């Protein structure tokens, strides 16, 4: 669109030439009109090495766009740059990406994603600049307030509104494929192998063997207790070299869970609210506890021991006894601070608030958070219903004494660079201090990162001094135990089953699968493409595990820019995407095409919007047959929508 300026200058030159020729009026009428040129759309996607699926969707769309006369340009960018461009700077036409929820989610996740109140904010809130005040906004608002059938109705209408208007085109819900080997860790769930719940639910293989040196499993209470006690001696000092960090011998190695990924971001940044660096936030969730944890649809009181509703719109949360990784106690003050801080990371220090770039929808449901006493917090909700209230409990709780110092405006070398962001949003959060079951050990940027089990976490912490490890024993301090771990399912008690978690960055999905096959890693974390999936079958020790994901692939449009601002135009773009064919080719069949962003929770999707027994999209079916586009029909649709083509069939960009 910058090109237009150049043309204007050129035309000014022509105008002067014509002026001397005499026919001023007519020339002005012609030269004063801006000529149309071919429409250019830039499609942003990560390169295949990073995400083998997204680029295939981008290619598919680009080819079909080219066929209808649009100059489609694929721009490959690393994850961080892509996110920065799309979520922070809003400087994009089209992007291909994944939604940020790892597991199937409540419909309220759409609130921040599509509500127009967030258009000016940067981060995961409405990156499309989408505004549908009377339709979508109202439905988003009412679905968080009403309950039961009323909510169901609002959610149904919401899906129809989003489907008609297509601020983003849902392509498919990928199966979260993971190549695993089971000789060291087992219990890889077929739900969501690499979620917080999945990782904590792992069991050591052969943990019953005495001499393997495992603290991992509670069955070996005595052995485990000794080991834990040994390590507790060095507890006070976080920086202290854990014996596990330098040891490379078999015994120590056996308790290390080794993961491989193509996503280098976890080796560079541990800021739980950074939109550019978090994919699902699985590992930061293991560093930073949340009040509640949702695992496979089950709500588990986590850092909160319990909560109850008080009055019409309040929740009173009582906290578990917990410490930060630096030894400070977790208090109600920290929790109250977190909610206030996420609403405005500048804590009132700037002209306008600087809200968190992630979890925005969740904290917007909380009006006020106040500490009642050391271990009780009262959250005043913004008149939201139960499920939205529970979502509000799922934000990382941050230590006040660390983040309090990050409320200043972000600076580079002491200079204010951008008054609209704070240190908290841009910090890499080196040496993260959380309260979670894992704590940070070390990292080599772009290569690897290591975490270790937090021996003080409530899942494993020793009670009293009687030497029994947490969770699994059935004798001794049972009374205390039940109290302390109330509400925590058996599968998480005494976990994690590993002493150390190492994540290694690999060059591609193929290399990641190979590393698992060769026994250098226990599981892959990042997405696997059609080149790597068949490989898993050929590796004797590797197995494919999958589950259900909430991270749907979608094509996002920047509705701030013409012609993407036109829902009709977006509708035609959506009809250029053959979801079924993409699932077969880009995902090797390991995905479900979808029309609704809520397709992972079928109970919310009306039957006519479910994909199950249909071949084509209910809103904007693909123009063509099984992968091959009917370009002429697509052009006709564009003509009907008011767009024009030149004699070479190029789609003309409408004047801006």
């Amino acid at each position, binding site marked *: 669109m910058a090109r237009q300026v150049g043309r204007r200058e050129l035309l000014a030159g022509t105008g002067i030439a014509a002026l001397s020729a005499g026919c001023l009026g007519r020339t002005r009428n012609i030269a004063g009109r801006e000529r149309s040129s071919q429409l250019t759309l830039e499609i942003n996607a990560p*390169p295949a090495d990073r995400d083998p699926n997204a*680029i295939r969707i981008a290619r*598919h769309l680009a080819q079909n766009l080219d066929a209808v006369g649009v100059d489609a340009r694929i721009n*490959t960018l690393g994850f961080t740059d892509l996110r920065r461009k799309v979520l922070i700077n809003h400087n994009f036409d089209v992007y291909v990406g994944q939604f940020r929820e790892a597991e199937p989610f409540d419909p309220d996740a759409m609130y921040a994603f599509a509500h127009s109140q967030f258009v000016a904010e940067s981060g995961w809130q409405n990156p499309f600049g989408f505004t549908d005040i009377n339709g979508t906004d109202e439905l988003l608002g009412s679905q968080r307030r009403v309950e039961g059938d009323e909510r169901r109705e609002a959610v149904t209408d919401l899906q129809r509104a989003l489907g008609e208007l297509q601020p983003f085109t849902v392509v498919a819900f990928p199966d979260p494929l993971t190549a695993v080997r089971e000789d060291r860790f087992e219990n890889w769930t077929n739900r969501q192998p690499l979620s917080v719940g999945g990782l904590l639910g792992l069991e050591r293989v052969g943990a019953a063997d005495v001499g393997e040196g495992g603290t991992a499993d509670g069955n070996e209470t005595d052995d485990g207790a000794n080991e834990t006690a040994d390590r507790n001696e060095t507890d006070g000092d976080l920086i202290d070299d854990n014996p596990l960090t330098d040891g490379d011998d078999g015994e120590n190695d056996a308790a290390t869970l080794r993961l491989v990924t193509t996503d280098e971001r976890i080796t560079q940044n541990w800021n739980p609210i950074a939109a550019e660096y978090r994919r699902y936030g699985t590992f930061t969730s293991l560093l930073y506890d949340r009040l509640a944890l949702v695992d496979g649809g089950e709500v588990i009181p986590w850092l909160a021991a319990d909560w109850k509703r008080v009055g019409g719109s309040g929740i009173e949360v009582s906290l578990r006894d917990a410490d930060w990784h630096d030894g400070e106690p977790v208090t109600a003050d920290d929790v109250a601070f977190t909610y206030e801080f996420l609403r405005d990371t500048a804590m009132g220090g700037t002209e306008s608030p600087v809200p968190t770039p992630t979890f925005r929808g969740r904290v917007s449901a909380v009006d006020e958070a106040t500490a009642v006493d050391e271990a009780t917090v009262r959250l005043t909700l913004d008149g939201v219903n139960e499920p939205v209230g529970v979502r509000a409990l799922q934000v990382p709780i941050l230590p006040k004494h660390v983040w309090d110092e990050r409320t200043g405006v972000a600076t580079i070398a002491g200079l204010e660079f951008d008054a609209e962001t704070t240190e908290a949003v841009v910090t890499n959060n080196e040496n993260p201090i959380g309260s979670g079951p894992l704590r940070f050990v070390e990292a080599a940027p772009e290569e690897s990162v290591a975490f270790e089990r937090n021996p003080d976490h409530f899942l494993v912490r020793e009670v009293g001094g009687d030497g029994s490890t947490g969770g699994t024993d059935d004798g001794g301090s049972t009374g205390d135990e039940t109290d302390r771990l109330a509400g925590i399912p058996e599968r998480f008690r005494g976990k994690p089953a590993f002493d150390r978690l190492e994540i290694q960055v690999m*060059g591609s999905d*193929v290399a990641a699968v190979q590393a698992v096959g060769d026994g250098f890693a226990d599981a892959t974390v990042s997405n696997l*493409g059609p080149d790597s999936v068949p490989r898993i079958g050929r590796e004797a020790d590797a197995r494919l595990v999958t589950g259900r994901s909430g991270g749907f692939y979608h094509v996002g449009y920047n509705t701030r820019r013409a012609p993407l601002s036109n829902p009709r135009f977006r509708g035609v773009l959506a009809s250029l995407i053959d979801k079924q064919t993409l699932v077969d080719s880009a995902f090797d069949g390991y995905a479900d095409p979808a029309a609704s962003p809520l397709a992972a929770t079928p109970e919310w999707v009306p039957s006519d919007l479910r994909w199950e027994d249909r071949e084509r999209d209910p809103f904007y079916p693909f123009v063509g047959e099984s992968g091959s586009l009917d370009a002429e029909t697509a052009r006709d649709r564009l003509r009907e929508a008011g767009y024009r083509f030149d004699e070479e069939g190029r789609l003309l960009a409408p004047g801006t």
Partner: protein
Amino acid sequence: MSPLLSVVSSLALWVGSALLVASVAIVGPRRLYALWDDLRDRLWEIRKPLAGLVVVLIASAIGRSSLQTVSELFGLQLTWAIYALEGDFVAWIQATFASPRLTMYFSSVYVYGYVFLLSFPFLAYLALPRTATVKRLVVAYALNYAIGLVVYTIVFAHGPRNVMPDMVTSLLFTHNPEFMALTGEVNEPANVFPSLHTSLSVTVGTFAVLTRREYPLWTPIAAWLATSVVIATMYLGIHWLTDVFGGIALALGAVYLSYRIVDEAEEEGERETDGDGESEDGE
């Protein structure tokens, strides 16, 4: 990590043996003995260009990731332009020629052949009685790396395997994932233009042609290997044709400059290379 170690040791073994055979066959025992006797003096004589090369390599190793960041933030994102320029040429190469045997051949050439191609001339030219050629070679290597690094920073682009995985298979890594461990240490995936594999191979090829009187046997071997490496960069889906052209231009420029910088007159050459070493520092 172990896969890296195994690739590196197998690389050392194969290239080492190839160097041994080639130096006996091409350089000849007489020159090798002379080189052995005179090694320290000759290395001392070429110390300045050598230091320049080492500086460039160290700068590249240290600065690469920060330059990569600069490139990500401020570089020209040109993937689309390269694709618009040449379209599906690389896909066409793969679709037309790909076969398991060729893949094996080009994969080995890309890794083993390339390392041999770069290391042998250093040995061979060092064995020459006059050091001008080896100085030029080292200067040309340094220029390739230094200029390459600058262009990498300016141009941010991904290769064909990353942009059109539906048509271009990443043949090297699909068939030999262990190589990924090695190349991952050396390369950023967003550094494709120009192709340094191409530029360094063509540099060696050009030198081989220029020194055909000294080593007539080496010229065809170098030409064959260099051409193979150049084709391999595209056949394996790593580079675009545009990167290859960029690499060839860089190579010819580097060779030309190395002749300007290192004069035949040795004394003059000393001073000139001195200056060069410093300018390399600057980059």
